[in-house]
């Protein structure tokens, strides 16, 4: 019997219905029209005024909703990040999820001693190299705020170090218009020229507005620079529920989206069609500890809701987080919180998902946790891929064979041999050995196994090296010539 082809349903999480989407979007526009925002960048202020905004009290701007709608129209609905060798590895379109680490942590867990210590440039290198070697980590980020480089150029040094240690796409931070120009210069060297870079951009800038409703000059400098050069950019603000934003998630989302829309409008007024990754960061301020949580369910919930807003309304690819925790060591809490955000971000089809490997609400980076998350992403993918239905997977013939031939079993049937690799998720680090075997091989926990695997990758993985003249050019830019 041959079945007609049945499309595979891929499990999908939905949080908002259309009415909710429209209500939150409407609230965001109302914030821009009625409350307004503080625009501290004179050029952007002028641009907004010329486009039809009202400016009151020097730099307070009220924006008509249609400007946001126009910007949503002109921004590309899909764009891609390339790797540093020109391959289109991250097509950011509806449905694709890509995971990677986060930015500036102050501390890291030392791979040898297991102790929390200040991050240095070698950590930036290690994280980049590890990302390069992990198949489910799609892009690199600094994961550190290195103590041992000149502080006024910290983001340039961090970027250069990442370039030297991975060929995957890079999400980067900059401080001002000055260091972003240097970072762009390096990126152009790597790509082989400005035109080549524009054809196949491999970097994305992570800049943030200040919740509530404040747009500092240096942040807008970066946004405008990125728009002009068509460097993809995300622009989340810290509209954390109870901190930078109202404690209720709906209001926090509306505020964060309003702030994002301001960025998008200036961005598209600067250069129509320049790539913009949509989405705020809406976590919560924990009401006991006063930390902004990286392990809470709320952040996962708001970004899943944002994914629904993308599907119903915005159409732009979105920015998200996952694989992070508030735990101080890579313990069971870290595993639980990490998996919670990984699976939900995938089930809601978030697009570019950062912060994997964060502990202590973004204070500590952990190499072992990044290695663990690589496996958790694989596990989640095996789930979200769903259950394909066809004659091969229904296996009626195999059932017939095993049932009719006495003494036969599925394990020995050809169908099993031919299908088991695709049919099952085959873990590498999650332990399923029998007790005695586990005890004999050292009674390791997941943390220990991730530690060993990380050390193995850092020792064995080869990153395709950059050409000598590229390396020299990079060093020149770092040292300021």
């Amino acid at each position: 019997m041959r079945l007609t082809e049945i499309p595979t349903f891929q499990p999908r999480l939905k949080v908002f219905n259309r009415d909710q989407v429209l209500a939150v979007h409407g609230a965001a526009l109302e914030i821009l029209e009625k409350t307004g925002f503080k625009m501290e960048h004179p050029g952007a202020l002028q641009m907004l005024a010329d486009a039809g905004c009202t400016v009151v009290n020097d730099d307070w701007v009220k924006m008509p909703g249609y400007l946001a709608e126009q910007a949503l129209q002109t921004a590309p609905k899909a764009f891609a990040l390339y790797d540093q060798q020109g391959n289109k590895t991250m097509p950011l379109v509806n449905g694709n999820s890509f995971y990677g680490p986060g930015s500036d942590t102050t501390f890291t867990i030392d791979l040898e001693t297991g102790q929390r210590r200040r991050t240095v440039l070698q950590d930036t290198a290690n994280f980049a190299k590890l990302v390069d070697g992990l198949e489910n980590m799609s892009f690199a980020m600094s994961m550190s705020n290195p103590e041992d480089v000149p502080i006024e150029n910290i983001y340039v040094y961090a970027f250069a170090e990442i370039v030297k240690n991975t060929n995957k796409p890079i999400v980067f931070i900059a401080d001002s218009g000055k260091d972003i120009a240097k970072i762009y210069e390096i990126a152009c060297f790597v790509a082989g020229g400005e035109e080549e870079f524009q054809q196949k951009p491999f970097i994305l800038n992570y800049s943030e507005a200040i919740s509530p409703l404040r747009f500092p000059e240096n942040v807008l400098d970066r946004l405008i620079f990125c728009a002009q050069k068509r460097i993809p950019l995300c622009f989340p603000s810290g509209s954390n529920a109870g901190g930078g934003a109202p404690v209720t998630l709906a209001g926090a989302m509306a505020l964060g989206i309003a702030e994002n829309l301001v960025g998008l409008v200036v961005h598209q007024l600067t250069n129509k069609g320049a790539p913009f990754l949509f989405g705020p960061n809406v976590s919560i301020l924990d009401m006991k500890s006063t930390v902004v949580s990286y392990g809470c369910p709320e952040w996962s919930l708001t970004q899943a809701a944002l994914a629904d807003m993308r599907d119903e309304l915005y159409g732009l690819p979105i920015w998200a987080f996952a694989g992070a925790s508030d735990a101080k060591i890579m313990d069971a809490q870290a595993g639980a919180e990490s998996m919670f955000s990984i699976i939900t971000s995938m089930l809601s089809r978030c697009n570019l998902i950062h912060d994997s490997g964060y502990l202590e609400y973004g204070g500590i980076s952990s190499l072992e946790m990044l290695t663990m998350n690589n496996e958790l992403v694989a596990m989640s993918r095996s789930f979200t891929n769903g259950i394909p239905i066809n004659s091969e997977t229904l296996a009626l013939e195999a059932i017939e064979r095993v049932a009719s031939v006495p003494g036969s079993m599925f394990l020995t049937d050809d169908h099993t041999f031919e299908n088991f690799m695709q049919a099952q998720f085959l873990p590498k680090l999650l332990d399923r050995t029998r007790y005695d075997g586990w005890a004999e091989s050292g009674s390791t926990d997941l943390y220990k196994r991730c530690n060993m695997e990380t050390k193995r990758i850092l020792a064995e993985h080869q990153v395709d090296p950059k050409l000598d003249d590229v390396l020299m050019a990079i060093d020149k830019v770092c040292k300021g010539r």
Partner: protein
Amino acid sequence: MNDFQVVVDAVHKGDIKTAVAETQKALDKGADVQEFLDKALIATMDDVGENFSKGITFVPQMLRSAKTMQECMKLLASSFQEGAVKSKGKVLIGTVKGDLHDIGKNLVAMMLEGAGFIITDLGVDVHPDKFVHKAQEIEPDIIAMSALLSTTMPSMPLTIEALEKAGIRDKVKVIIGGAPVTGKYAKEIKADSYGSDAGASVNLAKSLLGLS
């Protein structure tokens, strides 16, 4: 049982209306202002602060209690000016140059205010000279600096240097805090102390000024 039990309860609950009405009543009856401040308000806020540290009280509840206390304090304001009561001390606070994170700094300011300190808040992105000028103007007991970024931490020693140059470093205590800041760093830059969170900042401030 406290003479001002109704006020104490109202501050605990954050019941502004009752607290203010009862404060007025107490003042009308001629209550000793200093005693009222200490027993009805500050002691209660100490309690609330302690409950917060223990995880019994949540931040919004604590802040509501602080607000309740502030409203009652307004009624005592005339006594402050006449010098009949003393505040715990004056604190000049701000987020350092280049840094725009302010939620933690605001929380620290509110906690200190709740504990009876008088706060002058310079906001965010505060240049060392601005700290110095304001300090010369208001003569605070404590200067509190917040930094959330590794890149802005160096503004802290620069501010301390500026205080030295202006000849007022030994007239104030300097406390620092924020996510990347550590006790070790505080020692290195010769700050007087470091606090890891808003609750800690109150104890810090008190102990630096030799208050219980």
